């Protein structure tokens, strides 16, 4: 016998442990089945785009740290690359390599957190996550070595990086790079064939290829749906064309694929790190850039492959010391467009893990 029930509305968040920040979902439920979901955002809106119009190009770098604060270094990179493109600044070789080293370490750190939280959302409370945090901690120590910060680094500068790495940085990084594949094997063994992980995530929260493209999903979410699109390969920036690495892709676009793509991407990042360390040249780390930079009148859209997807900066210059328009393309906000497609018809518990598999960061969504 089918019991007829009235659909009811459940507000999940903004304070909810599994929403990874101040995110609210207005969920319409039929019993335990999700009928509709509307993301409601803006709780962390600080008006960064408006604030940036009143500050110089260099003063805006710390704002970018506060977007995706799990991967601040990458945000720095996206912004300074856009400004350099706008102003036509060449940067020294060593700085290019240091940037790649930071960006790829940051990708590993961000993915470790994404995977850890994903497993956490699946119900394996804390233990697997803390193992991942153990590795992340080593990376944070490395970042602390180079710039004294563990979360908001403000390390990149227009024209290079703020200062060279200390002597003991490279040995520590080499140690990390040598150890990391072993840990990844360990996690793979424990998690990737774990029956509970498979049952809960395989075939759940499917994002079809066409929908992924149409909603402009990017990063691991897009690649898990089988689209081989990585800006590092498709539109190489910095010096990515010098490195040999692969783009892992999924097949069906379910939660498991998104998890797998991230794990495999960490392995590729380790590969890039190995090559970057081997090729790292000596020399200057920052080009001579005028104190008050005035880029010529014009506009630029610079985008990079951040850990969570395509992070873009659209800057308009009127030849003054502050940007006329400073727009951020936040990858995870746009990835959320397809959330409804992924969860309708599934249970509340699946909604939590599907949302976790997108790997959002509210600092970036709300800006």
């Amino acid at each position: 016998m089918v019991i007829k029930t009235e659909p009811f509305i459940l507000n999940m968040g903004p304070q909810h442990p599994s929403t990874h920040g101040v995110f609210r979902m207005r969920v319409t439920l039929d019993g335990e089945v999700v009928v509709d979901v509307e993301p409601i955002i803006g709780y962390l809106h600080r008006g960064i785009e408006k604030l940036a119009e009143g500050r110089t190009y260099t003063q805006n770098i710390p704002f970018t740290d506060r977007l995706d604060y799990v991967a601040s270094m990458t945000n720095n990179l996206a912004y300074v690359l856009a400004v350099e493109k706008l102003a036509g600044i060449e940067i020294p070789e060593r700085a290019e390599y240091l940037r790649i080293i930071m960006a790829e370490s940051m990708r590993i750190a961000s993915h470790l957190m994404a995977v850890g939280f994903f497993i956490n959302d699946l119900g394996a409370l804390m233990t697997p996550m803390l193992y991942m945090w153990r590795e992340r901690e080593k990376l944070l120590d490395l970042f602390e070595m180079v710039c004294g910060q563990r979360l908001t680094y403000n390390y990149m500068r227009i024209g290079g990086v703020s200062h060279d790495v200390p002597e003991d940085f490279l040995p520590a990084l080499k140690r990390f790079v040598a150890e990391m594949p072993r840990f990844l094997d360990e996690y793979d063994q424990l998690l990737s064939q774990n029956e509970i992980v498979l049952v809960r995530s395989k075939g759940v929260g499917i994002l079809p290829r066409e929908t992924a493209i149409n909603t402009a999903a990017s990063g691991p979410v897009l690649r898990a749906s089988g689209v081989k699109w990585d800006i590092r390969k498709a539109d190489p920036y910095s010096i990515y064309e010098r490195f040999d690495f692969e783009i892992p892709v999924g097949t069906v676009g379910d939660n498991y694929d998104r998890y797998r793509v991230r794990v495999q991407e960490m392995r590729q990042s380790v590969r890039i790190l190995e090559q970057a360390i081997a090729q790292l040249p000596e020399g200057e780390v920052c080009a001579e850039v005028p104190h008050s930079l005035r880029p010529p009148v014009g506009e630029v859209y610079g985008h990079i492959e951040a850990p969570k997807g395509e992070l873009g900066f659209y800057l308009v210059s009127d030849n003054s010391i502050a940007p006329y328009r400073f727009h951020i393309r936040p990858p995870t906000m746009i990835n959320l467009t397809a959330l409804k497609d992924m969860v309708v018809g599934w249970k509340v518990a699946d909604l939590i893990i599907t949302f976790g598999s997108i790997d959002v960061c509210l600092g970036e969504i709300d800006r």
Partner: protein
Amino acid sequence: MTTALVGEQIAKEITELFPGAVVVADKAAVVVTSESLYQVADFLKNTPALDFDYLTNLTAVDYVDYFEVVYHLISLKSNHSLVLKTRCHDRDKPVVPSVVNLWRSADFQEREAYDLMGIIFDGHPNLKRLLLWEGFVGHPLRRDYL
């Protein structure tokens, strides 16, 4: 490397089909009238040679004399890109057709442009504020908002 298509060339193709649609075009971008925006966008998306299937970024800029809505388009298959723009001169009621029907990625981004810049996207299924709360007055990213 993503090839940036030359704006003037695309403008020529657009003018052939929609006379008077192009306002101005240079190497980097094509500016079309807001009335013809939807048809042009449809043409860019559904012409096999262009095949712009991925609307990566949508935003608006306030140039005081007019608002400019900017669309950054990419074709994932052919790996080329184009910047499409449109302008609206009416400060009190800047209206631009919504492209959500073509690219769903415009959904949140158009809401954001409406919220912060006050651009009205005609045909958007759910045009309400995205980041600010419902009772908020004004559109903070406008140049005259202090």
